C-alpha cells in the first residue's frame, strides 16, 4: 500500500509540475485602471498589462470570496490569467492582505 501510494504520489507531483501553470500566467502589480470587463495592472517590470475578466472569474479579498466591485484602483493584485488568442483572461483575482498559508510537512 505504501509503495503504491508513494508511486502514485510521485506521478501526481510530477504531473502537477508538468501541468501546473502550463497555460496560466500570474500578473502581479498595482491596479491602474478598471472597466467593467478589464483590469489594467502596472507590474514590477513597469509595463502595464491589461487582463480581461469573464463571468467565471473568481475574486478573493484576503482569501474570502469577493467581487470585482471590492477591487479599487491602487490596490495590489495578483491575477492568475490564461492567454486566449491575443488576450489575457482572468481565472482568479487575488487582493487584500493575506495570512500565511499553512503547508503540510
Amino acid at each position, binding site marked *: *500500500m*505504501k509503495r*503504491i*501510494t508513494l508511486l*502514485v*504520489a510521485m506521478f*501526481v*507531483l510530477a*504531473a*502537477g*509540475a508538468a*501541468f*501546473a*501553470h*502550463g497555460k496560466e500566467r*500570474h500578473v*502581479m502589480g498595482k491596479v491602474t485602471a478598471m472597466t467593467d470587463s478589464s483590469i489594467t495592472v502596472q507590474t514590477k517590470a513597469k509595463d502595464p498589462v491589461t487582463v480581461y475578466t469573464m463571468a467565471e472569474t473568481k475574486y478573493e479579498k484576503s*482569501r474570502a*470570496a469577493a467581487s470585482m466591485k471590492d477591487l479599487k484602483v491602487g490596490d*495590489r*493584485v*495578483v491575477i492568475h490569467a490564461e492567454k486566449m488568442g491575443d488576450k489575457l483572461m482572468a481565472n482568479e483575482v*487575488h*487582493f*487584500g*492582505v*493575506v495570512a*500565511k*498559508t*499553512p*503547508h*503540510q510537512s
Partner: protein
Amino acid sequence: MIKWTLLLSIIAAGAAGAAAFGWVTIRRGFSARDNPSALEAFLAKTARNLSIPASERDAKNPFAPTAEVLGEARAHFADHCATCHGNDGSGKTEIGQNLYPKAPDLRQSETQNLTDGQIYYIIHNGIRLTGMPAWGGPGKDDDSWQLVLFIRHLPQMTPQEMKEMEPFNPKSAAERSEEEDEQRFLNEDKSSEMKKKMHH
C-alpha cells in the same frame, strides 16, 4: 443444416462487426482528447460493474459519517484525489479533463447511484485502462471506506469546506515558492505601514 448456416452467419456478422469496430477505433487514433463513444462507455461501465463481485457490491461501510471521519476523509481526498477530481469532485481539473475517459463528476447520479461497496471497490482496486489507480493494498483498508463517506457528502459541500481543503492539495516546491512570493507582494503595503508607525 439450416441451423448451422444461420449460426455461422451470426458468428461471421459478429466477427465482421467487431473487426469494423476495431478498425474504426484504431483509425480514430489513441489520443486522450476524445470522449469514449456511447458504445464504448456502455461496454466499459457494464464490464466494470460485472467485474465487482456481489459480496463486494453489497458490502456495508463500517464507518459512520461523523464530523471527525468526514474531516479526515476530506483532507485525504484533497491530498490524494483532488489533483484529478478537484476539491469539489467535479473532475474539472487540468489532469481530470485530459484523461481518457475524463474524470467523472462524482456528485452526479452516475457515481452517487453506485452502492457503497462498488465505490469502495473502485477506490481500493482502481479501474484498468483509466487514470484511476488502485489505492488499497491486500485486505480491506479504512481510508477507502472513509472516502466513500466523503464522496457521498460531495453534493452538499460548502465553499468553506472547499477552502479548508486547499492547504492539503499537493504542490511542487516551485508552486509553494510562487505562492509565498504572491503573499509577500500582497502584504507589502501592510508591512510598510507598520514600519512607518514604528519609525514614528
